[in-house]
């Protein structure tokens, strides 16, 4: 079966091409059938890959490589297009195609209307699914690549898909600008990845003439000290790339703007899959990071600080999708924290649970947005529970999972990250725990503001209605995951209490990939205490949101007044966008104008024209040309050459 793994790429490729050429003529029914079938087929292949992987002999070390075709060969630089099928890539493929399929189902309904709530024309409907299938193709290329350069293909490919989908409503200047910003900011990250790849080739790949992960990591065994110390630089460049794609400090600024894209896009690309690529990449290249402890520390701190910063911004946003966007940045921060402390499996665990509950939250938010004709401001909502009971439950489940409500998916995965962080660095742990409190607060702030209480805009409220079954039904799959997905990662301490033989199935599944990493562990009492601590913090956060927004208790208002000075800073998102514009964008534009106006049109032109009095000749030439003798000058050159030859001939 594994020899046919390329089918997983073929299906979305065919789906995208098919709809690109014939989609408009076939009409929405067939378009969605083709697009959804393509992703479903890929999901089936992913499941079969997972099954076949277990059947591999022990000598295979749980991985299977499949070369598609030789790609770029020049001298000692040889890169093939090939797939690496191992537990890590298969988990990613399952998330991408599984969550991807559910989102495709939802989008088939959701995209019947455009951004102004008018029926969407067939051409754009088809175009949307072309982009969406193309995204699945590129995301799978990214995670299934067996070498760095092919990963880069997927890396930039998903960037293109993201660009196109953010700017899907391209007639809106804000959407078009957001797409462009996402692509360019990501290119800054890609700069790091491209340089890291070149550097790695010269450090570790040249002997094997390869950029394959296995060859590069294999070369680490015999690497000299100089090579190993250079890995500090390489991993920092990889980190730069990861902060771009996964919207971490300093390159997170594109993700909030990316919410201009249609909601299914936010759910699929900007929550569940693409933005996790940075986490995946660090996990995939962990043998390099393990040798660069300095970079690891930076990864962990970037993760923790981003998590805290984004969560604090999420607390004051009023746009439902933006709250979720900052929440995503914050949750990705947790994943960075995980891989930064070496807990790669925990990072992938959180990646998986987050994909489920955040996709759920986004799609539920999309249902709300549809019901309110595009309105996303939670200040204008309230009381929607009565109008959209199913969406309310879906959003509530998602928010609870996000908040780390005990026993739900997000609880287990977040706690595992905090558990490993606690053992490494108490300060990072404190930040993580504090962020967990903020997370619980802002998730339930959104729940209460949107669904509880009385409607604050009667007109909007009256128009609100539950969405069709086509949009509501798929979300139950995600809701189920948001509740139960944590079961794949129950820690041994808890499993032991219930007499479970197999605890933390995900960690065991990923073991072949991270076998080289060993993590310390704590006594069971400690582990349980940490679990209790996280539960308490989550419940406290939820309670605070309840007291503030449902009970509207007096002391919460006092508390809010206490933090008023911070409010403006948070609402302006710490002025990072303004800073980048002032420090990078504007100076470059000024420089460009200076180059064009001064050096190009004045300086160089002046020098050249001065040299040899070209100016005069030009003037003369122009005069003659205008007098109608156009060819004279040109012909004289030819005559000159021929004459010269004749002269040489005579002399010779």
């Amino acid at each position, binding site marked *: 079966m594994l020899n046919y793994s390329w089918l997983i790429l073929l299906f979305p490729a065919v789906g995208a091409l098919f709809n690109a050429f014939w989609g408009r003529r076939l009409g929405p029914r067939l378009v969605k059938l083709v697009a959804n079938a393509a992703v479903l087929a890929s999901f089936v292949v992913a499941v079969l890959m997972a099954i076949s992987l277990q059947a591999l002999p022990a000598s295979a070390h749980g991985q299977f490589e499949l070369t598609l075709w030789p790609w770029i060969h020049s001298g000692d*630089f040889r890169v093939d297009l090939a797939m690496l099928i191992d537990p890590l890539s298969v988990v990613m493929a399952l998330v991408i195609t599984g969550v991807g399929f559910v989102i495709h189902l939802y989008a088939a309904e959701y995209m019947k209307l455009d951004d102004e709530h008018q029926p969407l024309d067939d*051409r754009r409907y088809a175009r949307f699914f072309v982009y969406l299938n193309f995204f699945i193709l590129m995301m799978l290329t990214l995670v299934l690549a067996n070498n760095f350069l092919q990963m*880069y293909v997927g890396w930039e*490919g998903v960037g293109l898909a993201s660009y196109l989908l953010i700017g899907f409503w*391209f*007639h809106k200047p804000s959407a078009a*600008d957001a797409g462009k910003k996402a692509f360019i900011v990501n290119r800054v990250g890609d700069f790091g990845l491209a340089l890291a790849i070149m550097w790695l080739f010269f450090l570790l790949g040249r002997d094997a003439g390869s950029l394959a992960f296995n060859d590069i990591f294999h070369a680490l065994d015999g690497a000299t000290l100089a090579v190993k110390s250079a890995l500090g630089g390489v991993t920092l460049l990889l980190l730069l790339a990861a902060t771009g794609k996964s919207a971490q400090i300093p390159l997170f600024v594109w993700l909030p703007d990316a919410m201009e894209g249609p909601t299914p896009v936010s759910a699929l690309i900007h929550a569940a899959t693409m933005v996790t690529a940075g986490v995946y990449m660090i996990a995939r290249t962990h043998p390099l990071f393990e040798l660069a402890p300095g970079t690891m520390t930076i990864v962990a701190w970037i993760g923790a600080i981003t998590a805290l910063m984004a969560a604090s911004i999420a607390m004051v946003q009023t746009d439902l999708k933006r709250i979720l966007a900052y929440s995503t940045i914050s949750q990705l921060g947790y994943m960075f924290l995980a891989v930064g402390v070496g807990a790669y499996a925990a990072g992938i665990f959180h990646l998986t649970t987050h994909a489920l509950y955040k996709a759920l939250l986004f799609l539920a938010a999309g249902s709300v947005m549809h019901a309110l004709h595009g309105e996303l401001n939670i200040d204008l909502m309230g009381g929607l529970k009565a109008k959209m009971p199913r969406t309310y439950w879906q959003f509530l489940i998602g928010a609870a999972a996000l908040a780390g409500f005990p026993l739900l998916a997000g609880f287990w995965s977040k706690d595992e990250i905090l558990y490993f962080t606690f053992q490494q660095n108490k300060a990072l742990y404190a930040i993580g725990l504090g962020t967990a409190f903020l997370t619980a607060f802002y998730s339930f702030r959104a729940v209460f503001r949107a669904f509880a209480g009385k409607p604050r805009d009667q007109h909007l409220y009256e128009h609100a209605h539950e969405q069709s079954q086509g949009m509501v039904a798929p979300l139950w799959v995600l809701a189920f995951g948001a509740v139960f997905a944590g079961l794949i990662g129950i820690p041994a301490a808890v499993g032991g209490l219930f007499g479970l033989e197999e605890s933390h199935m995900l960690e065991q599944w990923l073991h072949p990939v991270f076998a080289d990493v060993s993590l310390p562990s704590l006594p069971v009492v400690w582990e349980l205490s940490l679990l209790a601590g996280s539960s308490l913090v989550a419940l406290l956060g939820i309670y605070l949101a309840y007291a503030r927004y449902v009970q509207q208790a007096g002391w919460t208002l006092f508390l809010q007044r206490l933090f008023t000075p911070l409010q403006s800073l948070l609402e302006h998102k710490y002025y990072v966008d303004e800073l980048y514009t002032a420090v990078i964008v504007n100076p470059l534009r000024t420089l460009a104008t200076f180059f064009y106006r001064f050096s190009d049109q004045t300086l160089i032109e002046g020098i050249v024209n001065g040299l040899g009095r070209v100016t005069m*000749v030009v003037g003369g030439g122009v005069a003659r040309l205008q007098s109608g003798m156009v060819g004279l000058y040109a012909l004289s050159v030819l005559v000159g*050459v021929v004459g010269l030859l004749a002269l040489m001939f005579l002399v010779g």
Partner: protein
Amino acid sequence: MSMDLTAIPLLSLILWLPVVGALLLFFVRKESTIKLIALATMLLDFVVSLGLLLNWSNTGDMQFVEKLLWIPPLNISYHLGVDGISLFLVLLTTLLGPIVVLYSWHNIKNNLRAFMVLLLVQQTGIVGVFTSLDLILFFIFWEFTLIPMYFLIGRWGGQRRVYAAVKFFLYTMAGSALMLVVILLLYWQTGSFDWIELQQTPLDPTVQTWAFLAFALAFAIKVPLFPFHTWLPDAHVEAPTAGSVILAGVLLKMGIYGFLRFCLPLFPDATLRFAPWIAGLALAGILYGALVALVQKDVKSLVAYSSIAHLGFVMLGVVSLNQQGLAGAVLQSVNHGLSTGALFLMVGMIYDRRHTRLLTEFGGLWKQIPIYSALLLVVVMASVGLPGLNGFVGEFTILVGAFKANRLWAVLGTVGVIFAAWYLLAAVRGMLQGPLDNPANQKLQDLSAREIWVLVPLILLFFLIGLFPNLFLDKINPAVETLLHGMNAAAQISFLP
């Protein structure tokens, strides 16, 4: 492939077929017949040139060599040949030929016959440059290519066409005057104009230095390398679309080709000495061209400045002087011809409709002309260097070579990759996205079948080169190896590629 074409003088056929077509045009009067003959000649020339691929052997040697003594007392011969360095440049030339004829089908309003004749003889000149192995023969073709382009710009160009044409002419003339002097100097030193013989005659380092500088000046102006580039934006903006396509597509490549064919193998020591300086200019061009492109208001001059940045990449590959750098440079020359050629065609298509190229005149075109917009996006992505398309393969191979030569080169070059996304997406933002609020754009017609067919071959090649670059690199690599071995053997300074 088993067909044996070695008995046929294939290169001569490719070289002179366009002239035959041009002569035929003087015997017909009907415009439609003129167009048909021109197109048929170009297509035939392209098909014949594909014969090179059929009988190609993957070695680094000159193939399809033809040699006839032409002017015996001076030992000047009609000496032609192709290797992996020139093969795809020849094919690019013959491919763009029919494309520009087809593009110009309806939009040449005056003197169609002269226009087609010029396109045809231009092609002969360019193929001659890429295949000549005798310096005098090379120089004649080199100079000859100026003439048709001069007329194409000066007669069928925009408002400032005369200024642009003369500027183009004088710049390139100034460059090549010194080259002729040095060719004569070399003859005086070695008694030969023959490229193969000259390679086997080691030159004194001082002679090499002067010879290199003279050749390099001629080629640098043609490329154009920063700061010799200021003729290019004028020429491009004023030239008719067909002229811009040929200019960017292949004429500029003559400069790159000149470095590869003459400077490197004939003056290896001087090349080594000046490589860092040229790399500096190439990098300056990459960053400068990209930044200046960012503030252009006319789409065509944006593309022109982007060319300066892209060709900076190619030159960076050339002076990296290693396998990846050189192979990448050859491949990227072809890539640039395809993607910038396509960009100019598409700018031309919108200009034909709106008679303006100012970004501020457009906006929201995607809604009105979706096929145009989708294709433009593909072309832009090829130019941005999106992996999976052609530009990436060339760019990355060059950067690997540059990294090998000097890490800083690769770092600065990669910064240029960021800028490329910036200015090209700004153009997409300005043209295709945003509200469709200009009434003049609300009646635009989408691409006709003819226009789509003009672009299809180029776009297919983006994907073919992007996904299967080895089909091309297989043929380029051996020639680059031979070149490097030759330089290594001839260089007096120690040199390890």
